[in-house]
């Protein structure tokens, strides 16, 4: 189903989303990848606050290219999410419900998603120039020394995403392939 949603990703909103939905997302999201997640989880372990309020937040796994003069952000497509699997359950526990990336996740992440009503969205991997067009504002908020991996606050409009995994255990990677193969088999018979 095609849906247009506005963030923050509340528990109620998250529950309406299903694996396979095409979702156009508008609102504030935060960028972080390997090194940023490591630092945030270390901060949580020490009982410190995160650089942004994680409640109902959505994190985009991305390390953009530097913006050219006149650009809000450089090319900004998703990175492989699996590298954040070690941190994702802790981030969901802190309240961050939404994740945007690409690629498979571990069962631990799927379990945490069920517990906290998490949603894993896919953006088109390798479509960095196209995805940058949805970013209307970009502000560096922390970990500037990490360069492309620094924490940024973005405002996105109608960002085209697909729900890969939902809070009920639905998984487009499994269902999409199976549906395609079933159709092929039917055609052959």
């Amino acid at each position, binding site marked *: 189903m095609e849906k247009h949603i506005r963030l923050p990703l509340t528990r109620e909103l998250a529950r309406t989303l299903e694996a396979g939905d095409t979702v156009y997302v508008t609102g504030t999201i935060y960028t972080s990848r390997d090194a940023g997640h490591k630092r945030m989880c270390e901060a949580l372990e020490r009982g410190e606050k995160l650089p942004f309020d994680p409640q109902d937040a959505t994190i985009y796994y*991305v390390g953009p290219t*530097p913006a050219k003069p006149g650009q809000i952000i450089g090319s900004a497509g998703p990175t*492989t999410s699996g590298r954040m699997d070690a941190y994702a359950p802790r981030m969901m526990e802190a309240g961050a419900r939404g994740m945007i990336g690409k690629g498979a996740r571990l069962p631990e992440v799927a379990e945490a998603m069920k517990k906290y009503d998490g949603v894993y969205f896919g953006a088109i991997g390798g479509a960095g120039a196209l995805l940058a067009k949805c970013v209307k504002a970009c502000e560096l908020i922390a970990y500037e020394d990490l360069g492309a991996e620094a924490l940024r606050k973005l405002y996105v409009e109608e960002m085209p995403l697909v729900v890969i995994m939902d809070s009920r255990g639905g998984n487009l990677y499994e269902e*999409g392939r199976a549906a395609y193969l079933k159709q092929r088999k039917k055609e052959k018979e």
Partner: protein
Amino acid sequence: MREIKASRITDVIERLCIQANTRLPEDVKEALRQSREKEDWETAAGVLDQIIENFEIAEKEEVPICQDTGMACVFLEIGQEVHITGGALQEAVDEGVRRGYEKGYLRKSVVKDPIRRGNTGDNTPAMLYTEIVPGDRIRITVAPKGFGSENMSAVRMLKPSAGLPGIKDFILEAVETAGRNPCRPVGVGVGMGGTFDKEALLAKKALMRPLNTSHPDPFYAKLERELLEKINAFGIGPQGFGGRTTALGLNIETMPTHIAGMPCAVNMSCHVTRHQTEVI
């Protein structure tokens, strides 16, 4: 001896780093467009439309196709009649990468140390591969390599007794288990023969051969077609959302090997398979 100044190599590499990251090779564009024509699964067709729109925007606006502007893999085929003057070769190459990644607003994605990390800040050093060839020219290729796909590559030292079925199983297994991590549709580079290190290099070189070409030996040309067909029957599809287009092309490069071995390497790429070449 023909003299070529190191600074000239720097200039060419600076230009190629920017070009390669903003412009897809024609054969990759063509493969994407043809795959879109053949794709009959709706979600998959929609994904391919976005991928095509993306490279068109990148080329028109001169921005990176993908935010992972990669490690700069630089291949130099140096004519044996050439004498490089005015500086060390690796430094000249690194300077080209440094300037290209700075001027082209490309992402700096290289860390100083595999375990202790720390960004080098300028995307150097380049991964430099040199070959001495006949002639008095230098053929320079820059192939930025992203790590979403690089991480999903595989090498295996197969036993000769595994034969053709063993080779096929290994390649298909490597491409299938890479699953959804590399940005599909992928390019698959296969290297066979040589030694442990040579097979991997052959696999990387295979990715630079245009996707619409075949291995000169009909035996391997047939194997390329057969494996590509099998991969595109996996149903994984663009981005792994299901569909026909799992891979754009599969190229095999081969060389002689030891009586006791049958090395095989699979270097995964993505739909942003980049390389640009200039001859000086």
